[in-house]
C-alpha cells in the first residue's frame, strides 16, 4: 500500500536529515502505530506519505503510484490526514458544511456531495450533530467531524498525526473507538502517530522511529519486550506491561503478554482459579 525506499528528507542542508534513508512497507488494511520521541521524524514521514513533502532522496509510492511533482495531487486524495488541533481544521459554519468543504474543493457535484457527507457523518456517529456549529462540540466530537471530512473524500489511507494529543482521556478513548468502529465497517489503512504506547497497543503493528530512522517494527507485544531500550529513546511501555514484567520476575507466567488491563485481569482470574 505505502512503500518507502531509502527515503531521506532534509528541511535544511546544514542540519542533517529529518528522515534518513528510511525504508518501510505498509500493507493494505494494516493499522500501523508510528511512534517515536518528539522530533524523531514522525510528522515528516506523514507528510511524505501524502505528498505534502517530496523526498530529497529515495522513492515513495502509494498503492503502486510513485510520488512525484506530477502525482502528489492524486496521492493526496488517496491519503487523508487528521491533525492535532481540531480547532484549526474547521472552516464551515455547520458540521455538515465542514465535512463538505473538502469535496467542494475537489469539485464534486452537489448530489454526490450530499450523499457522501451524510454517510461519512453516520460512519463516525455524528449525523445527529449535522446542523450544529462545530465550535460548540467537545474535543473528541470535533476530531470525529474532522475524520468525517476525510472519509467523505474516500481515501485509501488515513493518517492521524498526534490527533489525540490535545484531547482529554475521554476524547482519546472516543477517537480510538471511532477508528476501531470504522475498521469494522470498511477496509482502510490506518497510520496512527502517537508517543503514547498504550494507544499504540491498539495497532496491528508498531513502527518505532528514532532520529529519522526506523528503529524497530513489530507487533505491540514484541515491541513492548524492549522496555529499557525504548526508555533510552524517550519512550515508555504501557503501565500494564510494566506491572506484568514485575509479576513475571516473581514467578507469574501468563499465556500471553497482557496489553490492556482486561487481558491481565482475565488471565489472572483464570490462573488463580487453577491454583
Amino acid at each position, binding site marked *: 500500500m505505502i512503500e518507502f525506499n531509502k527515503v531521506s528528507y532534509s528541511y535544511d542542508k546544514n542540519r542533517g536529515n529529518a528522515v534518513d534513508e528510511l525504508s518501510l512497507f505498509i500493507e493494505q488494511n494494516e493499522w500501523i502505530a508510528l511512534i517515536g*520521541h*518528539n*522530533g524523531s521524524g514522525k510528522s515528516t514521514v506523514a507528510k511524505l506519505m501524502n505528498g505534502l513533502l517530496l523526498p530529497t532522496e529515495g522513492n515513495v509510492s502509494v498503492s503502486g503510484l510513485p510520488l512525484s511533482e506530477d502525482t502528489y495531487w492524486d496521492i493526496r486524495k488517496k491519503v487523508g490526514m487528521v491533525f*492535532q488541533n481540531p480547532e484549526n481544521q474547521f472552516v464551515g459554519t455547520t458540521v455538515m458544511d465542514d465535512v463538505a468543504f473538502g469535496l467542494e474543493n475537489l469539485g464534486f457535484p452537489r448530489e454526490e456531495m450530499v450523499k457522501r457527507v451524510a454517510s461519512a457523518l453516520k460512519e463516525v456517529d455524528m449525523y445527529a450533530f449535522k446542523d450544529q456549529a462545530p465550535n460548540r462540540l*467537545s*474535543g473528541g466530537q470535533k476530531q470525529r467531524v474532522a475524520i468525517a471530512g476525510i472519509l467523505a473524500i474516500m481515501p485509501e489511507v488515513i493518517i492521524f498525526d*498526534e490527533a489525540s*494529543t*490535545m*484531547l*482529554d*482521556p*475521554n*476524547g482519546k478513548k472516543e477517537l480510538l473507538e471511532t477508528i476501531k468502529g470504522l475498521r469494522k465497517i470498511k477496509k482502510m489503512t490506518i497510520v496512527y502517530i502517537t*508517543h*503514547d*504506547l498504550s494507544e499504540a497497543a491498539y495497532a496491528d503493528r508498531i513502527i518505532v522511529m528514532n532520529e529519522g530512522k526506523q528503529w524497530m517494527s513489530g507487533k505491540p507485544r514484541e515491541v513492548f519486550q524492549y522496555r529499557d531500550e525504548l*526508555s533510552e529513546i*524517550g*519512550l*515508555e511501555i504501557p*503501565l*500494564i506491561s*510494566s*506491572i*506484568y*514484567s*514485575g*509479576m*513475571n*520476575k*516473581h*514467578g*507469574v507466567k501468563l499465556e500471553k503478554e497482557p496489553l490492556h*488491563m482486561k487481558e*491481565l*485481569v482475565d488471565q*489472572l*482470574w483464570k*490462573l*488463580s482459579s487453577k*491454583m
Partner: protein
Amino acid sequence: MEIVFENVDFTYQPNSPFSHQALKNISLRIKHGDYAAFIGHTGSGKSTLLQHLNGILRPTSGTVRIGDFELTTKKNNAIKSLRRKVGVVFQYPEHQLFEETVERDILFGPKNFGMDMEEAKHKLPVILEEVGLPTDVLQRSPFELSGGQMRRVAIAGVLITDPNVLILDEPTAGLDPRGRKQIMSLIDSLHKKKRMTIILVTHHMEDVLRHANQAFVLSEGELVMQGEPVEVFQEEERLQDIGLGIPEELQLINQLQQALGLPITYHHQSPSELGKDIAQALHAGGNR
C-alpha cells in the same frame, strides 16, 4: 502565601446572549507549600479558576485571597505585585514565546514588572540551571528548541521574578514520555527545594497520585470533590459519573481486590513493585 476562595462565581460575558457561568460558588483553601492538582474534563472550569489566581480574571461575585491580596469584583491596583508573586505557565506556553532570543523571552517578565534588569540578568545562569537548560540556549531563537525545552524556557521566565506560587496549566500536554517525566521532576524539585506552592492542572491522573498532596475535582464549574489524591481516587464511581477515570494502577488494584480477593494496597510503589506485590499475593493465596 495561603490561597482562599470564598463563594466565587464567574460568568463570561454577563448580561449578553452568550453569557456563560464557568465557576459556581467555589470555596477552597490551598495552604502555603501545598502541591495542589486540579482535575476535571475539558470545559469544567480549570483554566478559568487558575486565571483568578493572578488577577487575569476577577470574580463576578465572592472573594479570592492570595496572601494579603484580595481580589473581588472591584479593580485592585496592586495587581502587578501580585503577578510577580504568583507565576503562571499557561497551556502550550510555546505559543506565547515571541522574542528573538531565549534570553529576551526569559527577561520579558522582569522588564514588564520594572525590576532591576542588571540583577535579573545576573540571575539567569542560576535559573537556567534550575530548569535544566544549558547557558548556550540564551542567544538562540526559542523556535529552534524542542517542545520540552520551550516549556522550560516558559518556566524560567516565571521563576526569574521569584514567585511564591507556581501555577502550571497542563504543562506536559503534547510532550513525549521522557519530556513529561523531566518536567514533572523539575516541578517536584521546585516544590521541595524552593518550597514553592504548586498548582497543577493535568489530565494525567497518575501524575496527580504521584506528585500532589491535594486534589480538587471540578465538574461543570462546581468543585465536587477535594482531598488527598488517594482518598479522592477511592471514589471511582463518582469520578466516572463526571467523566473522569482513576489512575490505571488503582483501577487494577480495585479489580484484583474485587475479582480475586487479593489483599493489595497502594503505597506509592513503582509499577514493577506493584507487579511483585501481585505475584506475592497470588502465591500466598495459592498455598492456602
